Each structure stands twice: as structure tokens, then as C-alpha cells.
């Protein structure tokens, strides 16, 4: 730099030059326009911004009905793997339900931080066997998920289900608060509820309940197992438990239901805790009719369908049939 530098405090403003003036004035006007446009865009006549939340609906996961096969197959035996396979084979084999490349979601009951012998969760052998069957049928991915009541990581781990699923080639998906999407359940009591997003992303869903005692509803069977798809304050559903169960069973139409009645929790349900409350019944039941399945499974708990209101309510909603004896049911014994 040459020449005299102006003194620090006497430096001269250059904005009097036309070019600079126009440049700055146009920038300021642009900024003002953006501010005004932004204000217009976010303007609202209500104090709460209304962004319509996407409401999902649950797909129907069922396969075509077929007269060739029974509706329900009951298998008694000791080897869980072959019992599960036999039960599904009687209904037409796993290939009838799972196509190559399908994403299959299994929904066992993993509500509690309990060990397998306490029978508060679906048995890990049963879950593992079903994962294995799906893999054999060529399922692309096999997901296992539930919304546990106890700490989910502990529940999946200590129930033995996490290990059984990994060993059989499946994936465990634990639901965090961000894994729920608002879903229209279309029920008489249940309208829009948060549902685990994995149900929106799966092609096929297999329900894997376990037979358990429950004080309020009398029993926890296949239809009650759908509580485990919900987030939110689902414990409020207890205030009308029978309608809730029927609404859930109406909203969730699984590809297949396989009931674990190997170990049955007869008392102190649904948490159990004491091995003395558990009796071995060594039975696996696969069914396409959850009402018939639940109606049959009541026998393990010494209950009769007339005492359990949700069964008749479900039949009235044409979800299934309470009188399982009038259906085509296969019964077999293994080993």
C-alpha cells in the first residue's frame, strides 16, 4: 500500500458511491423480501400448527383359504421342533404360508423378564423352530418382535428368545419409543393407536402366543397376545378388556397362529414366577382361526368358553368360531 493511510478513527464511508449503494440496498431489499415471505409462510390463525400425522392401516396378512386342509392342527409330543413342523405341515406346510423372499414377522409373547421354565413368555424352542421353518421356506428375513412390559432387552435375553432367534437365523427387533406409528385399528373401542412399525413393513405375520392364566380376562391366549403390538398407555385397555381383545383380533389378521402349550402357566399369571405354577402340557397348536384356537386352549386352564366374554364377542364380529369341534381339526401324537 502506498500513500497515506487514513487515521483509524477518521476512515471514510464509501457508501456514497452509487454502485455500492445499489448493491447494499438491493441486498437489504432481498433480505426484507425473504423475511416477509417467511413470515407469510409460517403464519397461522391457530396457536398450534396443524400437521396432519400420517395414519397407517394394518395389512391383511392371511393367505387364500383352502378346503383341502384343516383349519387347526393339534400336535402332542416331546420334541418341540418336530411338533411345530408337524402342526404346520398338517395345515398345508410352511410353503403354503411363506413365499420366497417374504419378510416374516413373528410375534411371540416376550412380555416379561422371566426364564423359560417360568412359562411367562413363549418358549424359546418354539420361537426358534418357527424361525427355522420360515428360513427353510425361503423367507428373506425373519423378524421377531414384541413390546415387552418389563425391560425389553432383559426380557428378550433372559427368556432365551434372543439366542434362539439368532441361532435359527432370525433378527430380534426391540421397539423403542420412536418405533411406533399411528395406526387406525378400526375398532369399536380402539380407534387410532400407536403400533409397532415392523407390522407395516412385514409381508407375513405369525402369532406365537403361549397359554397363560390372567386375572382380569381369565386367560392370555392368541387374541390377547396382540396387546404386544401396541405402544402408548395400553394398560388403559384393561378398563374394557374384552372389547379391546376383540378389536385387536379384528385389526390383526395373521398369516398363521402357532400356540405354545408346552409349558402352561396355570396360576399367578401373566407373570408367574414360581415353577410350581407351571404344568407341562406338551402341546403345539397351529391354527387359522384364533377364536377356535383360544376356545380350544381354554381347556388347559380349566375354563369354559361361556365364562370368557371375548370369545362370543369375537364370533359375533365374524373373527372366528367358538365351537372348534365343528371345524376340520387335525389331532396327532408324535413320539
Amino acid at each position: 500500500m502506498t500513500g497515506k493511510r487514513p487515521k483509524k478513527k477518521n476512515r471514510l464511508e464509501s457508501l456514497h458511491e452509487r454502485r455500492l449503494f445499489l448493491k447494499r440496498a438491493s441486498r437489504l431489499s432481498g433480505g426484507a423480501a425473504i423475511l416477509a415471505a417467511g413470515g407469510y409462510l409460517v403464519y397461522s390463525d391457530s396457536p398450534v400448527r396443524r400437521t396432519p400425522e400420517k395414519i397407517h392401516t394394518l395389512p391383511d396378512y392371511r393367505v387364500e383359504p383352502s378346503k383341502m386342509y384343516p383349519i387347526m392342527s393339534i400336535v402332542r409330543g416331546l420334541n418341540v421342533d418336530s411338533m411345530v413342523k408337524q402342526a404346520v405341515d398338517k395345515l398345508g406346510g410352511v410353503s403354503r404360508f411363506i413365499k420366497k423372499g417374504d419378510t416374516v414377522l413373528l410375534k411371540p409373547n416376550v412380555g416379561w423378564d422371566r426364564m423359560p421354565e417360568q412359562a411367562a413368555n413363549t418358549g424359546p424352542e418354539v420361537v426358534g423352530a418357527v424361525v427355522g421353518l420360515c428360513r427353510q421356506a425361503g423367507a428373506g428375513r425373519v423378524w421377531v418382535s414384541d413390546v415387552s412390559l418389563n425391560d425389553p432387552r432383559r426380557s428378550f435375553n433372559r427368556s432365551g428368545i434372543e439366542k434362539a432367534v439368532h441361532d435359527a437365523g432370525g433378527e430380534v427387533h426391540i421397539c423403542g419409543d420412536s418405533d411406533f406409528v399411528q395406526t387406525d385399528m378400526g375398532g369399536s373401542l380402539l380407534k387410532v393407536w400407536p403400533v409397532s412399525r415392523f407390522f407395516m413393513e412385514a409381508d407375513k405375520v405369525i402369532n406365537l402366543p403361549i397359554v397363560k392364566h390372567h386375572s382380569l380376562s381369565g386367560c392370555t391366549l392368541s387374541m390377547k397376545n396382540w396387546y404386544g403390538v401396541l405402544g402408548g398407555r395400553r394398560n388403559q385397555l384393561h378398563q374394557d378388556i374384552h372389547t379391546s381383545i376383540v378389536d385387536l383380533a379384528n385389526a390383526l389378521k395373521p398369516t398363521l397362529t402357532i400356540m405354545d402349550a408346552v409349558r402352561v402357566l396355570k396360576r399367578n399369571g401373566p407373570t408367574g414366577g414360581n415353577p410350581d405354577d407351571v404344568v407341562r402340557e406338551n402341546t403345539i397348536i397351529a391354527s387359522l382361526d384364533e377364536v377356535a384356537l383360544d376356545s380350544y386352549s381354554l381347556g388347559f386352564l380349566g375354563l369354559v368358553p361361556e365364562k370368557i366374554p371375548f370369545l362370543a364377542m369375537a364370533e359375533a364380529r365374524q373373527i372366528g368360531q367358538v365351537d372348534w369341534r365343528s371345524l376340520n381339526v387335525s389331532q396327532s401324537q408324535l413320539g
Partner: protein
Amino acid sequence: MPGLRAIRRIYAIFFFVLFLFFIFSADFQHLKGYEVSLFLQIDPLTAIAGLLTSHTLYKGLALSLVILIPTLFLGRFFCSWVCPLGVLNQWLSHFANKRRPSEEYVVNNYRPIYRIKYYILTLLLVLSAFGMLQIGIFDPIAVMYRSFTISVLPAFDKIEAGIYLNDPLFNGGIFISALFLLIILANRFLTRFWCRVLCPLGALLGVFSQWSLLRIHRDVEKCTDCSKCLQFCQGGCDPDGELRVSECHVCMNCLEQCPETALHYGLATAKSSVAKPLDINKRRMLETVVGAGFLFPMLRSSISAHASPAPTVIRPPGSLAEEEFLARCIKCAACMRVCPTNVLQPALLETGFEGLWTPILINRQGYCEHHCVLCGQVCPTAAIRPISIEEKIGKKPFEEPIRLGTAFFDRGRCLPWAMQTPCIVCEEVCPTSPKAIWYRSTEVKDRNGKIKLVKQPFVEPTTCIGCGICENQCPVTDKAAIRVTSVGESRSKSNRMILEGKKVV
């Protein structure tokens, strides 16, 4: 061969990464036998203060001798080689501040305010001698563990790091975050402000290192008084003059800076400069001791959980009786880190001032998982004893389960009791067998005189373990219709309501 500074840097990085690994691993998924509380156990301040309050050097705390004994010979190496807070402060001071070398020399001069840490240490140790353990508020390892548990990891997880399934929340967590942020920001004002001015562990190690045989020595003949050694001095310990051994972290930076190789670490030579003794003012020290003597009864004079049982002071399973508990808890929040349900929360003043940031259960946030005993496994001082699942649930050979308190119904809020509405969620989730919550089917009339059959719940106090899952799951969302209070807790002999020996009905 790498210089001593390079070796120190490798140690610092190693221990900092180890600290991060331990704090990350301290949950149900990753805790696979790792000694995640190792840093808390090797902390000599925890050991000595705990020895004063509990009269025992508990198990792993003996590991602190691994730090203390070498300090006698090698100097205060812990602060720049091992301490995760020291390393963090050092990195922040160094990388986040741009100073001209001339400013560095000024910043790294010794200042009389560095004495404050010795008074803080004295205050805390005198209180400990009286039986009140407050070192946890200022102990750097406890500060790190607590701050990471309550602020840093949850904040980090907000950017989808996937540490938690759901982000944990903590009672008054902002106060813990604020203290941590102040410690961090103080590095702006003065390099390693915390370590030089406030840290009681640094002070303790300073006292132990004052006679150390190995230290930085300055050769008075070679030294040209250029003061370049001050530029990166971490302790502010005057290596250019008479070394203040108690302030020196043996960071070895000065060795590498000296253009004349006038400095060496090791034994004295014939030309080594003398060192300055520990710089504390005896009068101030006496005042601190007297002050602590007055402070102690004042702190004890407020209502606290061990003066009279407090309903909301529900301690983790395996906790010692309140007085013994407070004599050991260093507020490190290791239990809160490992708790799977987020029920363990730092207390504010619920338990009296003495119990600030000690763990209590807040059942609206979580509940005590029936088969979980992780908090006792990670507690470094056994304020929460390490218990087995069998002991917790009262399985043979144990006679009784560990009770945290007892649940009580609020019949004015309970749906079946007050609103003729079916519910008994509490009964469903009750984990004991037989369930502590039972019900009676009762015919009740609603407003219109219509008769309804509802199941009305009761608590059986001899079966209830106070786990709080009923309170946590109660559909009355704000203030539950069933709530646990501490009465009946196993750890207290006096906080009981049921006559001892009364059997389960």
C-alpha cells in the same frame, strides 16, 4: 526410543479411551464381567475418605494403593497420565484455546489460588472424619462418571448413537450438567482451572508426592532462565525456578521444551535446584478445620432420611441402612448408568442435604426389575451391596426377599375403588409369586344405581417387595393410584409397620 512426553501421551489416551469404554459398557447388554467401576476403585480419595467414614477399606478400593504408593516415589503422575477429567481438561485447555507463547508463560505461572484445593480437601476430610462423606461432589472420577451418565451420554444419544432404547431422564439432571459445564468452561479462564485450583484428589496426591524421590530437576548451571519450560507446563509448578513438587503432574512437557537440556526427570544431581515445599497457609488450614467443625452439625441439623424415615427415600436393592449407606455413597451414579429402567435417580434434597445426588427410586420413571441386581454389581463402595438374584427374590437359602418399601392404594384415585371401573393392571404386573396384590370381586352401584361387578385390589404387605412396577404401570398417569413408600424396607430395622415374625396370610 520415544521420549517421556510421548509415553505420557500414550497413557493419557489409553486411560481416557478405557474410561469411555467402561462407561459405555456399563449396561445390561454390554456388561460382560468388565470392571466398569475400576476408575472409581483406584481413586485414593474415595478410599481414604471412605476409610474415615466406614472404618474399612472395602475390597476393590485397596486398588487405590496402586496409585498412592507409586505417587510417593514418582510424584503426582495420576493427574496427567490417568485421570480422565484431567486428560479432558488438558485437551480442552490445549486445543480449544489459542494463546500467544507470551500468554502461555503467564497462564502457566504458579498462583496462590492453587492453594484452594488443599483447603477443599481438608474440609472434605474433616467432614469425613466426623462421619459425613461429601467427597463425591468434588471427586474428579465421581464427577466424570456422574456427568457422563447424566448429561454426556444422554446428550450424545440424541444424535442417534443408539446407546439407549429410550433416552433416560434424570431428576434435576441439569444441576449435574451445569457443574460439569462450569468445570469444562473454566479451562477458558485458566488452563486446567479445575485440576490446579479445585480438585481435592489432586490436592491429596500433591500432599503424597511432596517428598517423592524422582522429580523434575533443573540444572542451575545449564539453565539460561529463558522460561520456555513454562509454555506447556500442565501443573503450573514453576519448573523454571524452585519446582513446586506438589503441583507438578510430571507431564514431561518441560523436558522437551528446554533448549539447553537443563531439565531431567529422575534423581537429584549435584547441580539440581532445590524444590519449594507444599505451599499452604497454616492459619487458613486451621480456619478450615474449625470451619468444618462448625459446618458438620449445621449440615446434620436438617431433617434427613436417617433422622426420621422419609417416604420417598427408596434406596436400590441391597443398599445398607441409611447411615451406613451415606457413609459410603460417593454419588458417582454408576448405579444410575447401569439401571435398565431409569428408576434410579439422583436425589436432590429428598434425603437431606447429605444425600444430594445419592440414588433413589422414582417409580413414575421406572421400577425395580425383579431379577435385576446390576446396581450392586457396579457400586464401587458397596453402599449398595453386591447381591445375588436369589438373595434379592428370597429364594433358598435366603428366607426373605429384599424389600425396598411397601405399596399403598390411594382409593380416591384407584379406578375400581373410586370409579367402579375394571382395571387391576397393578395385579397383572406384580412380579411376586404369589402376587402381593390381590383382589376381591365386589358388586358396586354406579351413579345410576346400576350394579357392576368389579375386582377391587388390595396389597398384602408381607408379600410386597416395593419394586414399584404397580406404581409405574398404573393408568392414572400423573400421580399413580398405588404408590410405594419406604416403610417396610429390609435395610432398616426401625422403618417397619408390620410386627416382625408375622407370617404371610
